[in-house]
């Protein structure tokens, strides 16, 4: 038994001296692991100069700018409708956001009691636009609604949650 113990101790001594002679490395970070010097050992690849294959690479690259939505007439499962109105069709115009969505938002007060619908990116006659929206929403809901116009910044605030009503109206106008 004692011999075994001495043998084990001796072995331990040998291993510790070995580890001391090495420089300590932390393998915890991906940066500290050694680099693959010969990729041929790991992956099989070939270099191609074929231009027709570039499109398969291109579609993997991230977009530089937000791509345009599909053209008018397509039906989408999400219910998305692209803008169809020209800026000169009406005395007013609501521009789409940079993501080609309708700029209608719901803002809620911190405890969620007060709800305000906000329509932004309005150009042209904002007073006529407010009149038309108000008429449509009041007819739909049978309730009087309160609105606030910020002409300088081109936005309208509607008291209450009428986001979907306003979006419906905008679809009828093609915004």
């Amino acid at each position, binding site marked *: 038994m004692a011999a075994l113990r001495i043998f084990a101790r001796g072995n331990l001594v040998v291993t510790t001296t070995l580890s001391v002679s090495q420089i300590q490395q932390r393998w915890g970070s991906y940066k500290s692991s050694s680099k693959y010097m010969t990729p041929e050992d790991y992956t099989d690849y070939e270099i191609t100069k074929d231009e027709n294959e570039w499109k398969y690479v291109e579609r993997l690259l*991230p*977009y*530089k*700018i*937000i*791509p345009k939505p599909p053209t008018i007439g397509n039906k989408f499962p999400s219910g998305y409708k692209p*803008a169809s109105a*020209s*800026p000169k069709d009406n005395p007013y*115009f609501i*521009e*789409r956001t*940079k993501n080609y969505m309708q700029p209608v938002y719901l803002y809620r007060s911190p405890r969620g009691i007060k709800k305000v619908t906000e329509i932004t990116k309005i*150009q*042209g006659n904002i007073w006529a636009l407010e009149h038309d929206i108000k008429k449509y929403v009041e007819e739909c809901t049978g309730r009087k609604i309160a609105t606030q116009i910020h002409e*300088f*910044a*081109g936005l309208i605030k509607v008291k209450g949650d009428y986001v979907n009503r306003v979006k419906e109206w905008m679809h009828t106008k093609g915004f």
Partner: protein
Amino acid sequence: MSMLFRRIVNKLQRATCPPLKYCTTVENQAKIDDVVPIISEIQYDDGNNFYQKPRQVWLENLNTVEEKKLGLITLHPHIYAAAPRIDIIHQNVRWQRMYRWVSYAHTKTRAEVRGGGRKPWPQKGTGRARHGSIRSPLWRGGGVAHGPRSPTPHFYMLPFYTRIAGLTATLSVKLAQDDLHIVDELEIPTSEPSYVEQLIEERNWGPSVLFIDSYDIMPTNITLATDQIKHVNIMPFYGLNVYSMLKHNTLVLTEKAARLIEEKLLYHLHRADNNQLLRPFRLNQQ
């Protein structure tokens, strides 16, 4: 009586002066036959979606003191005809003044004023008010409570898209007020400061002018000519900012710089990676 007479004479003198020119859109009197007009029509990708018309601006020259109209160029309405949001412009100007301001006002607290370690008189029995230190803020010569401490930085960052909106609003305001001019290049024939002064006088560009080029190495002549005039400055396009645009009466862009500014701002208004871009500035960091 003599006062009255003098006033009348003064008024008459003023009346004989030639009428002042207030605007550079007055029709060009000098007929230039040798210039073939350059008309750059640009078809923008989102051209059928503009409420504002694309802006048409005269292309001018700098190589003569008299103004020659070399042609017309078209500019994107989302950059050069944006809404004049003076609130956003003000936010930008305030940010530019604040982020570089470090306040060095300093006062000493009661701990830093010399002395005052011992109780001036016993708590009870003297008939005087109780005090623990002669450097208390209540005392004359005592420390200051809640005084300014040096250095106080006022650095903060304006949201990225507020900065972009500030640039478009200011460029649009400058163009609408006829304070934005576009020239073909910044080459001038001499390196004399008087040439630039005459040119500015002739074209009613106001005392201070900011020239913007597309690259940071400018032509030699304009560099030498504007070096000694403190209110005429030159700047590369990437240095363009709201504060400098408002600081100078007139903004002069080269055509290439105007295009680069337009291109860069349009990219920021349509870039797809804005989620990634704004991640470091989010308050709810994961």
